[in-house]
């Protein structure tokens, strides 16, 4: 195999084909007897509210989590090439990485102090 990434697409294709086929079959095969109540949102049997909570908008808290995730995830991804090339880079990499992780810790401590990691 000259191109090692192609078999990943095989797996993707198989998974998607199976999922799509199953859902499609169930759409064709299953009974369809709809009524108004069946198509309403489920809210424990009481009259459903016309929209999801907050009009379908997402609480700001989750944006914060998402942004923190991006910051720290990218930082952890930066550690990967360092770790892989560690035995070639030597002491230089070690010192650099400690400095990098210290910087991450400063950001982390800041977020903690400002209440970014508080859940109630």
């Amino acid at each position: 195999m000259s191109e090692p990434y192609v078999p990943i697409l095989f797996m993707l294709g198989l998974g998607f084909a199976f999922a799509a086929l199953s859902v499609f079959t169930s759409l064709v095969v299953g009974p369809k007897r709809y009524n108004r109540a069946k198509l309403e949102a489920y809210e424990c049997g009481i009259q459903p509210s016309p929209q999801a909570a907050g009009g379908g908008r997402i609480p700001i808290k989750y944006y914060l989590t998402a942004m923190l995730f991006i910051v720290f995830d990218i930082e952890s991804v930066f550690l990967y090439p360092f770790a892989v090339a560690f035995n070639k880079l030597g002491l230089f990499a070690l010192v650099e990485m400690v400095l990098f992780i210290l910087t991450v810790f400063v950001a982390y401590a800041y977020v903690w102090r400002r209440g970014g990691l508080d859940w109630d």
Partner: protein
Amino acid sequence: MSLSTAAYDIALSLPAGVTGLAPANDNPVADFSDTPWWVALIKAVGVFVYLLLSTLLVIWFERRVIGRMQQRPGPNRNGPFGLLQTLADGMKSMLKEDITPANADRIVYTTAPLIAATMAFVSFAIIPLGGTVSIFGHETPLQITDVPVAVLLVLAVASVGVYGIVLAGWSSGSTYPLLGGLRSTAQVISYEIAMGLSLVAIFLYSGSMSTSQIVAAQSSLWYILPAFFSFAVYVITMVGETNRLPFDLAEGEGELTGGFHTEYSAMRFAMFYLGEYVNMFTVSALATTMFLGGWQAPPFIAAIGDGALNGGWWGLLWFTIKLWMFMFFFVWLRGSLPRVRYDQFMRFGWRFLIPITLAWVVAVAFIRGAQLGFLGQGTFTIGGRELSVATVVIVSIVAVIALAAAWIWDDKRAEREAAAEFNPPEEIDPFEGGFPVPPLPGQRLREPSGLAVGSGAASREPVTSSVTSTLTSSPVKEETHG
């Protein structure tokens, strides 16, 4: 910089023996040169069927084992030993009515389960299931493919899989799915950071992100030993990643009904179900590959017949056994632990796992640096084993710091517990708060001061005064005025 460049030169000029287990190149060791595309396709289909059958089996396994843990038989009516149970569940879902709520965003609502199910399968493409075997005359590794960034691919695919959850929650147009989807997403991405960090230690040891390379590097020592802490963190985060008990907050029935899949029925729901279980297999397979030597036989079996049982198709057996150990662990957790609270869960992830894993990465980097001789070349001999001075010093420093941290943490906790302990006063005034309060066990009621003398108004004086001070418009006050 002169110091570091000097060490860099030393590192490059080291003989191969000093660098220990670390392989020099970071490319896959698995040889795919004799693998035409159709063999890769056959292997992909094989892995796909393997995963589907495993999923069918593991749901039955889970229900049976949980049954046993709760001293009941579990599903045993449908098919021999109830083995057809999962199949029946699937077929039943196929024959159910498929509902798309009127409020839902139809396209996204249909796409979400497809994403969840599809992405669950993709990661398995880079998992090595066994050694080199012969398939239709082609010598090929029992692995669909391997790339230099294989593990990064797994993490990336897991991140895309989260879209399935968040889109399902959003597109249902209903409150419970929205909240459940958000919770689940926040949970999965939070634990993904700690998971990614825990794997850095493995890359430091193996010097590669290719899975076949990582497995090959573990031929003498499984990474569960040198990277034991990473293993612990990984196991915790993999439970958080897959939304399983005790971290299945997204579908806590008592608060969010079904979470993100509340509005899903029939096969679309079954796709989420399938995705969840295949995800369990994926994270378990990654754990097996990273920490338990992948498809390699356990050391004592590997020694039999000069490695006759350690390669080829035999690898599939060892791999499957290790995989199912993790599946049993998942079931065991589910059978024994209650669900944690959301804020505790998030706090544990962000405030404990992430910093401590970062610290562990630093520690491993130092240990690894010492092993590779970056920190000095001195050695000494104890009991016939040659040990590097730097390694011993670094390991001791790490151990001392860890012990000190544990000690301080323990002290702090004891202090906090002592502070939090509520010592009820020995004596209470039952009318202090304005209404009568019964005493706690071991408490005495405060005797009104002048009771023994007997004049009613005088003896009740302290009580009524406290009542009037707290309840300004109470009838008692009016009485005293009137």
